[in-house]
């Protein structure tokens, strides 16, 4: 599976992070549960935390960043449309976004 935006390296990195999150999410959650559970013995919790630390950088959900699917831009993103503000404007004015039209009052 490829995306049109994959020609931007930052988007490639982001897709890599998304795949990593998807792959490791269940086991990470299990370790998180043990590590954050105050009713368990501290030694067990510490072991779980050490295991959490062995996961790679691109398995953490916080490394995922919504980027523009047209330009790869990382700021000013309208997540609903996966577009940056300028691409959103261009597409909206071309009538390519359903239900979006220019404000007028």
């Amino acid at each position, binding site marked *: *599976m*490829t*995306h*049109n*935006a*994959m020609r931007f390296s930052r*988007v490639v990195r982001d*897709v890599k992070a*998304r*795949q990593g*999150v*998807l*792959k490791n*999410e*269940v086991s990470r*959650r299990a370790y*998180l*549960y*043990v*590590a*954050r*559970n*105050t*009713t368990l013995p501290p030694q067990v919790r510490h072991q779980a935390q050490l295991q959490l630390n062995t996961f790679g950088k691109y398995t953490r*959900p916080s490394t*995922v960043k*919504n980027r523009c*699917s047209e330009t790869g831009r990382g700021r000013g993103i309208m*997540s609903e449309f*996966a577009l940056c503000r300028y691409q959103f404007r261009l597409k909206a004015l071309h009538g390519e976004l359903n239900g979006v039209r220019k404000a007028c009052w």
Partner: protein
Amino acid sequence: MDALRVVPSKLKGLTRLRCEIFQTAYNPKNLRTGAKYLRARLRGPSMMEYYPKTITLSQVARELPQLGIVDEDEMQRLQDVEDRKRRGKGAPKKAKRKEDSKRMSKKR
């Protein structure tokens, strides 16, 4: 007024009963049990749907070789690379050791 006053022990019992009925964890001391990490939905599947999927010609050619599709742009690119190589304009050889790299020698 006395009739309206609730006994704490009875209130506790009520909470426990409520937890039993609705199958929630009884946690009167509000300890951190980490349950929220198990309760939260998995975010990976929806994360994968963010970028819209596109189908490219090269993808189709790779999936269905029996169709005999030729990606002309890719062919042209490979041809250009070959031509450039023939004219001695190809990519330089990878340095085997650190001293071989041009970047290192340039800096001095």
